[in-house]
């Protein structure tokens, strides 16, 4: 069981910055995220795109902002439960909440901050394939969690983006046969990846099929064969695995059933005070919340996180009054024993 002060759901910019503001108040944090890496949308959707409205940065790439945030919160030693989705929230007593993930990891905390952005990123499934669900976990996979799973197997990957390219390249050294299928002849990915796939195709290590689409999945229990339409002609291909990589789409998911007040796919909060939801001790910050005048901007998420931490502090330290301190004056004391502080001015007489 993971025990912390403040449990943050969502490792996007708002969730990450929360760790810093909480840390200044000596509140320990742990973050859960469905994706394998921190950064949320910034890391998943547009790591190489610039953002122009982060105060103090005329321009910063999304990926770089995530790296900076990770660096900024390092001394507060946040815990991470990655690649897991929070599925249930339960109030245990007046003081404690329990959040359990889809993999059964139990977290207990004294307050919960939902910083879930657009929701959980889930794979976009080719639902038009008739018996898709029958083969899920029986040959159809949406993620490459453990490459060894595919060792010496025949693999078909579908998709036209970076993940389809990258996994085709990677698995060409693991699987016995890799076929990459895309509806178009053009791929959208890093130039380097496109060139690598081209080279592997020329060496006969990747079997490239374009423009092509998967039409049917066949097999008794496990997937055995797929039907593909290539250039208008139908053909069969024996395979052990089919990995459709059509990107991820965000869904509010399980947290819609936690008893929170939801409006327009967002969680209603008290914006006059502390971004608390209708459940005391549970907050919602960043893109996932809504209130009159709400703007889904990173900088607004930072502000919301900061005010929320004050409320969490009062909740954990009943009766204690917190006095606002400036980091320039007080410095930053990390949980790891480190200390950052402004250099002392030299007071010396000049002869």
């Amino acid at each position, binding site marked *: 069981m993971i025990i912390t002060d403040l449990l943050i759901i969502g490792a996007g910019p708002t969730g990450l910055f929360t760790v810093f503001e909480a840390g200044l108040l000596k509140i320990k944090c742990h973050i859960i995220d469905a994706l394998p890496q921190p950064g949320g*949308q910034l890391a998943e*959707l*547009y790591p190489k*795109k610039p953002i122009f409205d982060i105060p103090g940065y005329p321009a910063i790439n999304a990926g770089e902002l995530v790296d900076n945030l990770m660096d900024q919160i390092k001394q507060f030693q946040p815990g991470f439960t990655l690649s897991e989705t929070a599925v249930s929230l339960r109030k245990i007593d007046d003081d404690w909440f329990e959040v359990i993930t889809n993999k059964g990891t139990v977290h207990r905390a004294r307050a919960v901050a939902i910083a879930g952005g*657009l*929701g959980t990123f889930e794979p*976009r499934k*080719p*639902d*038009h394939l008739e018996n898709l669900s029958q083969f899920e976990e029986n040959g159809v996979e949406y993620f490459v969690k453990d490459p060894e799973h595919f060792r010496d197997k025949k693999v078909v990957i579908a*998709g*036209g*983006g970076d993940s389809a390219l990258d996994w085709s390249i990677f698995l060409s050294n693991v699987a016995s046969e890799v076929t990459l299928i*895309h*509806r*178009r002849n*053009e*791929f*959208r990915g890093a130039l380097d990846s496109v060139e690598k796939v081209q080279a592997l195709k020329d060496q006969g290590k990747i079997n490239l099929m374009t423009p092509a689409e998967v039409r049917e999945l066949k097999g008794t229990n496990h997937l055995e064969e797929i039907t593909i339409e290539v250039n208008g002609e139908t053909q069969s291909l024996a395979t052990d695995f089919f990995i459709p990589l*059509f*990107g991820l*789409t*965000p869904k*509010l998911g399980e947290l819609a059933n936690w008893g929170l007040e939801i409006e*327009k*796919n*967002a969680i209603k909060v008290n914006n006059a005070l502390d971004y608390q939801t209708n459940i005391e001790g549970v907050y919602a910050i960043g893109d996932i919340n809504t209130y009159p005048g709400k703007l889904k901007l990173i900088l607004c998420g930072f502000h919301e996180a900061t005010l929320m931490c004050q409320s969490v502090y009062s909740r954990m330290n009943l009766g204690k009054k917190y006095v606002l301190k400036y980091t320039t004056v007080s410095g930053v004391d990390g949980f790891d024993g480190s200390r950052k502080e402004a250099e002392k001015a030299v007071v010396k007489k000049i002869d």
Partner: protein
Amino acid sequence: MSDITVKIKDREGVLHEISAPTDMSMNLMEVIRAYELAEEGTIGVCGGMAMCASCQVYVVSGAENLTEMGDEEDAMLGEAFHTRDNSRLGCQIHITEDIEGLEVEIAPYP
């Protein structure tokens, strides 16, 4: 600068005739959002970067007045579901006087 009239059929099949301003640097996805013609969270998910296809529309009439599709839009539609020959991404259609009278239908999500 003035407003233009655009016809938009929502995902329930209801046709809306709405006016859109040409002087606010808006795109069709933002207009759909502003008029709440699609549920929040199911449109413009990526914010308008041609990276999610949640604003996919079928152009019923007025396609000839639209600017040509860019590479990113084309590639995104190459991966999107429910695409047809007349698919476009709403976020890549800019509201200008040239597209007066455009008629579109919002594609299913996701």
